[in-house]
C-alpha cells in the first residue's frame, strides 16, 4: 500500500502548495514513485506551481465520478520521471470529494505502484481539508512563526488526532512540523517566534525550517518546484526536510542570520 503524506496547515497562505510540490518532487528524486494530488476543489493551484497548468485535461473529481480513468487524469512530470500530478477540479463543488471516492483513488494508485501519495490540502477545516487528512499515514504541518498560523496548526493537529482514519482505528498519524517563511534576523531581534518556541507550543517533531526566500516566488513564477533550485536557501532547506522525512539525519540550516560586515551592521539596512 502506498504511503499517504498529507500537507496541511489550517491557515491559508502559509506555503502548503509550495511545500507539497517540493516534497513530492523531493521524494520522486530520491527514487520513489510519487503522485501529488490537489485537494483544493474549486481553487486549484498545484498545477501552476508544478508548471503543468496547460496539460490538465481531466482532474481528480472526474476520476472519482467515473468520467475519466486515472491513467487519463495523471499528468507525468517532464523533469522528474517518477513524479505524477493529479489536478483538482476547477468547476465542481467540493462535496464531489467523497470518502469512498478518495479511498478508491488511493487504492488504485497503490495498485499502479506508487510508493508515496502526497495530498495537498486546502486551507480551512471543511470537506476538502478533512478528506485530504482522512487517509493520512503522515502529516506535514506547515506553520509560519506567527500567532494565527500556530493556533490553526494546533487545531488541525486536534482533527488529525480525532477524525483521521488512523485515529478512529486507535492508531496515530505521524506528525511532522515544517516551519516556513522563517526570518532568523527577526527571530534574533525578538520580533518573531523562534523554531524552538513553535515546537514547544505545538509539541510536534520538527522536520525542517524553510527560510523566507525570494527563490519561492521565483519558483512559482516559473512553475518549477523550489526544491529543484539547488542554489537557493529554500531549495536546500526543502531537500534537507525530505531527506529527514526519509530517515536521514541532517543538521538544520539557516537558523541564524547570515554574517554581516561590521560596517553594514552599524549603518543598518536590510537585504
Amino acid at each position, binding site marked *: 500500500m502506498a504511503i499517504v503524506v498529507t500537507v496541511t496547515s489550517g491557515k491559508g497562505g502559509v506555503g502548503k502548495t509550495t511545500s507539497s510540490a517540493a516534497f513530492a518532487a523531493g521524494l520522486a528524486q530520491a527514487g520513489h514513485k510519487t503522485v501529488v494530488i490537489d485537494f483544493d476543489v474549486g481553487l486549484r493551484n498545484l498545477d501552476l506551481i508544478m508548471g503543468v497548468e496547460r496539460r490538465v485535461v481531466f482532474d481528480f473529481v472526474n476520476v472519482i465520478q467515473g468520467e475519466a480513468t486515472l491513467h487519463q487524469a495523471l499528468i507525468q512530470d517532464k523533469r522528474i520521471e517518477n513524479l505524477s500530478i493529479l489536478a483538482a477540479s476547477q468547476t465542481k463543488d467540493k462535496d464531489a470529494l467523497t470518502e469512498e471516492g478518495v479511498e478508491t483513488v488511493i487504492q488504485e494508485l497503490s495498485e499502479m505502484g506508487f510508493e508515496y501519495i502526497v495530498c495537498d490540502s486546502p486551507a480551512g477545516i471543511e470537506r476538502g481539508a478533512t478528506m485530504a487528512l482522512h487517509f493520512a499515514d503522515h502529516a506535514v504541518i506547515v506553520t509560519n512563526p*506567527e*500567532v494565527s498560523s*500556530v*493556533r490553526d496548526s*494546533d*487545531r488541525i493537529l*486536534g482533527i488529525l488526532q*480525532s477524525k483521521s482514519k488512523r485515529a478512529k482505528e486507535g492508531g496515530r498519524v505521524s506528525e511532522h512540523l515544517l516551519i516556513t517563511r522563517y526570518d532568523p534576523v527577526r*527571530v534574533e*531581534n*525578538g*520580533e*518573531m*517566534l*523562534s523554531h524552538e*518556541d513553535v515546537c*514547544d*507550543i*505545538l509539541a510536534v517533531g520538527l522536520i525542517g525550517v524553510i527560510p523566507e526566500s525570494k527563490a519561492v516566488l521565483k519558483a512559482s513564477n516559473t512553475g518549477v518546484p523550489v526544491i529543484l533550485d539547488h542554489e537557493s536557501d529554500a531549495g536546500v532547506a526543502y531537500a534537507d526536510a525530505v531527506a529527514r522525512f526519509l530517515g536521514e539525519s541532517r543538521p538544520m540550516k539557516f537558523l541564524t542570520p547570515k554574517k554581516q560586515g561590521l560596517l553594514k*551592521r*552599524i*549603518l*543598518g*539596512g536590510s537585504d
Partner: protein
Amino acid sequence: MALFGLFGSKKPSSASAAKERLQILISHERHNRTGPDFLPDLQREILQVVKKYVEISDDQVNIRLDRHGDASVLELNVTLPER
C-alpha cells in the same frame, strides 16, 4: 537604531508576548477539545437550573474536568451575585 542594536539594550520582545499568549490559548483550546462531548451541554443545562433561582450571566458558571491519575474530577464553579 542599528548602532544601538549592537550594544544590546534589551526591551521585552513581541515574540515572547506571542509565545505566552499562544501557550495560554492553546492549552485552553486543547482542554476543551479533549474533554468529553457532554461537557458543553452539561454546562448549559446547569446554567439553566441555576438561572431558575438566581440571576446570573453565562460566564458565571464554569465547569471543567481534570484527570488525576486514574480518577477524574468534575469541578463546578458558580459565581453568585452579591446581595
